[in-house]
């Protein structure tokens, strides 16, 4: 059916994106291998979340191509874009559950919007998806009654409700306690393998990320600093990557924000 079942599900080719005064992604080319778990890492404000939004067509690149399964997302009109988005699931940083719907109805939402399935079937699918994230028992709770980690797992069940090909996670680990973090990491890996997904996640957690990701891409200054397996990335000779993967406070990314020199600010010349 698919005319070109290439190695990568998502591919960025010479992609540039920025706002009026600031370039976020500068001529970036990268690819996300099909069926694998890919991690996007890099300093805050480095354009990781922007890449997810570009893949989903919520932001449009100024130049270059962004191929999702061989089709360029950038010039798509709403109808085509919605067709492409149906094949993607996205997990937002804080879950973004619909506050006025129960956990069950949240997961049922995409099914009810996009399929004409009977309520009995919807119920079975929803409970299956909730079971996969370990929260079948929480189906009747309201979003206000669940913890942050649970909210994200529910949102994950909702994101995979329609069996997408690609799942994107925006900082799935931020602000989680160690147990929830381990659960989240295991879920990303297990869902990817059991459902035959392609996963992309944005993360700052070095240990968890290196443990579960097949492919790691580190962005810096709007470009890809390095990419490869965990071992390859750790061995990278790039000083910036070295600073990042070893979590050093000072390096190419300075500890001090650029400003006048210490002498100037503290007026040593005048004292002398």
């Amino acid at each position, binding site marked *: 059916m698919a005319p070109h079942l290439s190695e990568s599900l998502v591919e960025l080719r010479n992609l540039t994106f920025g706002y009026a005064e600031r370039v976020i992604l500068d001529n970036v080319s990268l690819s996300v291998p099909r069926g694998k778990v890919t991690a996007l890492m890099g300093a805050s404000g480095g354009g990781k979340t922007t890449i997810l939004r570009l893949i989903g067509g919520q932001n449009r690149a100024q130049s270059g191509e962004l191929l999702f399964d061989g089709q360029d997302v950038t010039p798509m009109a709403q109808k085509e874009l919605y067709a492409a988005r149906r094949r993607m*699931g996205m997990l937002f*940083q*804080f879950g*973004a559950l619909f*506050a006025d719907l129960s956990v069950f109805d949240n997961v049922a*939402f*995409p099914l009810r*919007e996009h399929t004409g399935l009977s309520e009995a079937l919807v119920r079975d699918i929803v409970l299956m998806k909730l079971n996969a994230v370990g929260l079948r028992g929480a189906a009747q709770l309201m979003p206000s009654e669940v913890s942050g980690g649970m909210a994200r797992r529910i*949102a994950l069940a909702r994101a995979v409700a329609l069996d997408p090909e690609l799942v994107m996670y925006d900082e799935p680990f931020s602000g989680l306690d160690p147990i929830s973090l381990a659960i989240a990491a295991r879920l990303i890996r297990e869902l990817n393998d059991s459902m035959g997904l392609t996963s992309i996640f944005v993360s700052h957690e070095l240990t968890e990320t290196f443990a579960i990701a097949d492919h790691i891409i580190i962005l810096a200054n709007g470009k890809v600093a390095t990419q490869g397996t965990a071992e390859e990335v750790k061995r990278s000779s790039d000083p910036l990557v070295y600073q990042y993967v070893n979590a050093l406070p000072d390096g190419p990314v300075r500890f001090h924000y650029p400003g006048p020199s210490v002498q100037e600010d503290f007026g040593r010349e005048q004292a002398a």
Partner: protein
Amino acid sequence: MSWYKPADVGLAVRRQLADMGLGARLLLRLLLTSGPTFRRFSLVRDQIHFLGNYSLVIIAVSGLFVGLVFGLQGYYTLQRYGSSEALGLLVTLSLVRELGPVVTALLFAGRAGTSLTAEIGLMKAGEQISVMEMMAVDPIQRVLAPRFWAGVIAMPLLAAVFSSMGVIGGWLVGVVMIGVDSGSFWSQIQGGVDVWQDVGNGIIKSVVFGVAVTFIALLQGYEAQATPEGVAAATTRTVVLASLTVLGLDFILTALMFVI
């Protein structure tokens, strides 16, 4: 002191135009997506319940008190000319033609409009609008359009409740308390109120106000900055803009209705 600099004036004008363009586009998309919205009428029905039912108490009580006060004030003036039997007609015409639609719209903006703006704004702040877009569900069609039509449908109904309660208030003061003749009170209303000229124009007004108030509330929520401060500011803007728009539109509509 630089507000009169040509560049600043130009920027302000361009911003205003851009805002108007955004508003016009949203209204157009709301109208274009109405077909699917009406096919899933349960969504609209739930919102009519939410917007209409929950506004019912404030509308009914306000209507009653406006009628009570109107009964007293109207009697005070009319009895000077020995025509206190016309009290029913005075109260009814004022309510049906003017006060019913206008005061209902102002109260609706305060009660339902603010809750709409806050709801949409908070959905935006919580990324619920984005998540819906990512699920390939159009938030304008799924979230905004049902609320829009619910507001448009609820407004004339609420205005009718307001006016009815007002007439009852006028009757309580005029007939029950002061002792105006009950027969002439009601027969003057029957004879003097025209279905098309008076009631019809009142309904047209409240439908127009329904469109205006609900649309302003939705636009402010949808364009709100996705922060707590942004939502608070948007809620305030809804009340101010909707109230001024209702009063402005009311004058235009009344003037047109006198001419036609």
